[in-house]
């Protein structure tokens, strides 16, 4: 009943190339979903349909019971409750870290500057980067950038967080600091969809694993079953490649 995300019979094409084929996926409040699958299988496209960075052609996507259409108001209000973290951070390079964080609260939520600053400082503390507040993104390391990007999303107090391979662009020694932030977020009960190949993180955090290949959901199961007893051959092969 309390599904915050309902994806029904979702299909999407880029010109005549079908990226998503009849996807069905429901996410309950507080649930953590980890999506994995080979490159090009449509993982990014799927989660980008949830905040309508991508427009689908068939089926429906509902967030908090509201169907996503071309209605701009619906899209904008959805984006305020759905935070997104990108592989390449996408921080705004011309703004300081603090300004990156206060931008959306001030303009999208119309908070005044002091309220926005209070929220921004709170989340900078949470991701442990308060000492960098007045630097520019170009002066931070990859791991720090990604933590700032997470904090930036959190400043809108979203109910759902989407992560698109948040650690794939990082040097290995920085992966942990980002995963730690995500784990903490998960423990606090955030609803999360993570596209990631960090299987340690997945085992620890996921309520459900989703494996995608060629635009389809091939397997959807609990982490125990997914890692110990995968049903499909493709999943087995993929896990073999990624774990060894």
């Amino acid at each position, binding site marked *: 009943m309390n599904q915050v995300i309902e994806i029904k019979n979702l299909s999407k094409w880029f010109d005549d190339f079908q990226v998503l084929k009849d996807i069905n996926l429901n996410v309950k409040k507080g649930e953590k979903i980890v999506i994995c699958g080979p490159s090009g299988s449509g993982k990014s496209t799927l989660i980008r349909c949830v905040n309508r960075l991508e427009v689908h052609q068939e089926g429906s996507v509902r967030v908090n019971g509201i169907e996503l259409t071309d209605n701009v108001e619906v899209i904008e209000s959805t984006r305020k409750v759905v935070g997104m973290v990108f592989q390449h951070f996408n*921080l*705004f*390079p011309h703004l300081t870290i603090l300004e990156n964080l206060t931008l959306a609260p001030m303009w999208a939520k119309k908070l005044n500057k002091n309220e926005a600053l209070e929220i921004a400082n709170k989340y900078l503390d949470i991701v442990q980067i308060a000492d960098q507040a007045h630097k520019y993104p*170009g002066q931070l390391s990859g791991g720090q950038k990604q933590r700032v990007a997470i904090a930036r999303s959190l400043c809108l107090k979203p109910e759902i967080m989407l992560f698109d391979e948040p650690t794939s662009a990082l040097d290995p020694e920085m992966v942990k600091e980002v995963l730690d932030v995500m784990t903490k977020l998960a423990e606090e009960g955030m609803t999360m969809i993570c596209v990631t190949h960090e299987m340690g993180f997945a085992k620890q955090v996921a309520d459900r694993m989703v494996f995608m290949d060629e635009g389809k959901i091939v397997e959807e199961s609990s982490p125990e079953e997914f890692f110990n007893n995968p049903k499909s051959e493709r999943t087995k092969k993929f896990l073999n490649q990624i774990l060894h």
Partner: protein
Amino acid sequence: MFKSKALRTWCHKNLFNSKMNSFLSVVIVVILFKFLSYFYAWFVTNAVWIGDAAACREASGACVVFIKEKYNFILFGFYPRAEIYRPILCIVLLLSLVIYSSYEKNWKKCTLILWALLFLVSTILMGGGIFSLPIVESDQWGGLPLTLILSVVGIFVSYPLGIVLALGRRSKMPIIRIFSTCYIELIRGVPMISLLFMSSVMFPLFLPEGVVIDKIIRAQIAIIMFVCAYMAEVVRGGLQAIPRGQYEAAEALGLNYFQTMRLVILPQALKVVIPPTVNTVIGMFKDTSLVIIIALFDLMSTMKTALKDPEWLGFNVEGYIFIALIYFMFCFSMGKYSRTLEKKFNRKGTLT
């Protein structure tokens, strides 16, 4: 001793580090020396600094007297001599505000208000008619004030218009996109001279009987129409340099189109295109001299008129060098300012 050694090392490293380089250095030094000594003879040794036209004709050097005699007319055209303090005041105010606005700390709303005020004040100053200032009709305005007014107003209006057109050309709405694209391509397809002609000859035909629009305003409109198309393409180049991730991040944060553009995309895009923007501005500053063809007396035209004075025929070189120096001063400052801005923004780490 130390200094001369440092100089020797520097010369060796930069001027004589290969046979080819040494050869070129020597050739250039010789040419430079020839030119400078010729110029010195022309401008100092043989020049006429005091005297009349006859003395000038006899001498082989520059006729500085000609400039002394004519600079008033070249700079201010047919503006009544008794009122000449008015355009001077205008120029001083304008240049002061330009310098004030060039500092980043003054980039705020109240500077815009100052500009609006300046616009009002200079219109009153130049035109007169109130505060017991005698009326000076706009066909008596000329010289440097006219050039500066046409350029400054031109930049102020065509820069924002260019931004709007650039956004329009990339818009998802087909009508806006097609209109912007057609406008830009159409304007870029014709020379500015033809636009000036159209605005001065054809434009009045479309106006209702009895309505007359000042010739300066008509020229100004033509200049704006022309420059904003070029500005649009410059800005579009900047928009294209911004990675898609920036748009997506802004949108994913719930910012709407205008907020995304104003707060995230344009601040970055406009910085990327500072050099071509200033290039366009410099081009426009010089192109204002084309208004000569619709009989407006800008700096270039007043100089040409001064050359035609029967008493002072034949001093073309002096006249052209004089206004070349004025144009150079302005254009060089703009170029210098552009490089300062670039450096400042690069230091801030504009791009990741």
